[in-house]
């Protein structure tokens, strides 16, 4: 069963809108960390297959960083944020106040920096959604990886215990500080029942 084919355009709009709100909060929290203005492009949200997700982010062996949190409560599933290699280094430079181009690999310090950014951003996203939809959603301590995209994605799908679920809600974002672009992909992998609950909470017939 795939949920994607069963959602109406109005329901997808509601999910896009809530994604927009969630990511707006995530961008604000990043701006606070950097103590500077962060611009955000209009997020693009859709349900896609894993193969498609891998293609969009850049291929099976693409080096990416990923921060993930498990969701419990009214919504069960996982959220994860993926930054490509360049954006990852750029974020580290910004956060540590380094000149752009300084970071070219992630040491332990840089990893914990990215983990923290991802943690704060996914946390802001989740709390915005739970406030807006009036749902109780708790999130776990984040986990982090910096490696091949496919290796990371499959490990996440397995960890969430839904190996036969082939669709994720993918939300593509671009964040800007001045003219510097940070490309990120935010994904929500939730049980179909959870998406139904979310839509119902938003006042839509699911």
């Amino acid at each position, binding site marked *: 069963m795939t949920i994607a084919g069963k959602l109406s355009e109005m329901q997808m709009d509601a999910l896009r809108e809530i994604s927009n709100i969630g990511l707006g909060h995530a961008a604000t929290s990043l701006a606070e960390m950097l103590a500077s203005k962060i611009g955000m492009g209009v997020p693009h949200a859709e349900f896609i297959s894993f*193969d498609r997700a891998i293609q969009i982010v850049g291929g099976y062996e693409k080096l990416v960083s990923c921060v993930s949190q498990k969701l419990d409560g009214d919504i069960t599933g996982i959220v994860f944020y993926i930054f490509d290699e360049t954006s990852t280094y750029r974020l580290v430079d910004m956060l540590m106040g380094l000149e752009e181009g300084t970071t070219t690999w992630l040491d332990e310090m840089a990893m914990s920096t990215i983990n923290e950014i991802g943690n704060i951003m996914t946390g802001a996203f989740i709390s915005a959604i739970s406030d807006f939809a009036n749902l109780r959603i708790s999130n*776990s*301590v984040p986990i982090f*990886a910096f*490696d091949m995209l*496919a290796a990371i994605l499959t*490990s996440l799908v*397995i*960890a969430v215990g839904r190996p*036969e679920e082939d669709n994720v809600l993918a939300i593509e974002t671009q964040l800007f500080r001045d003219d510097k672009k940070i490309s990120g992909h935010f994904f929500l992998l939730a049980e179909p029942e959870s998406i139904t609950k979310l839509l119902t909470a938003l006042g839509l017939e699911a």
Partner: protein
Amino acid sequence: MHAIHDAQDIHVGIGEYKVAQSPGRLVTLGLGSCVGVTLWDPVTKIGGLLHIMLPNSKEFSRINKKGKYADLGIPMVINEMVKQGAGRGRIQAKLVGGAQMFIGADKKQLLFNIGERNVESSRKILKDMRINIAGEEVGGNKGRTIYLDLQTGKVTIRTIGQDIKVI
């Protein structure tokens, strides 16, 4: 450098398997906690590659791709190889993958340790089927891409930021 993509490469997707005869290579990209099982008959040079995601299908009620599960996938590949002419008693296996990709303070998620369970389950099934394990490159915390050379049975392993390894 070896292990660059080649037109003759046959790609095996996540949770899938392929069987083929030399020449050429069977390839699967980006194994994380998944395990790549290569099976190869040195006489007919028929080989199989399986990209396992989970150790045991019995833990799940709804199954659409049998190749995702070690307990269903391994026997399927072996049967398919034998059907194509491989000698069952000559087949040798190699296991690659089963990494722990994530770091973090969440012990519950870390302890889930699916990679290790995938490796253990694969070993047990191969042992039960009396298939010899000729090589392993498992565990650790790096994603791996593997190539099974159908001519030699050698498995080339690529990881990001490390040297290429051949087993």
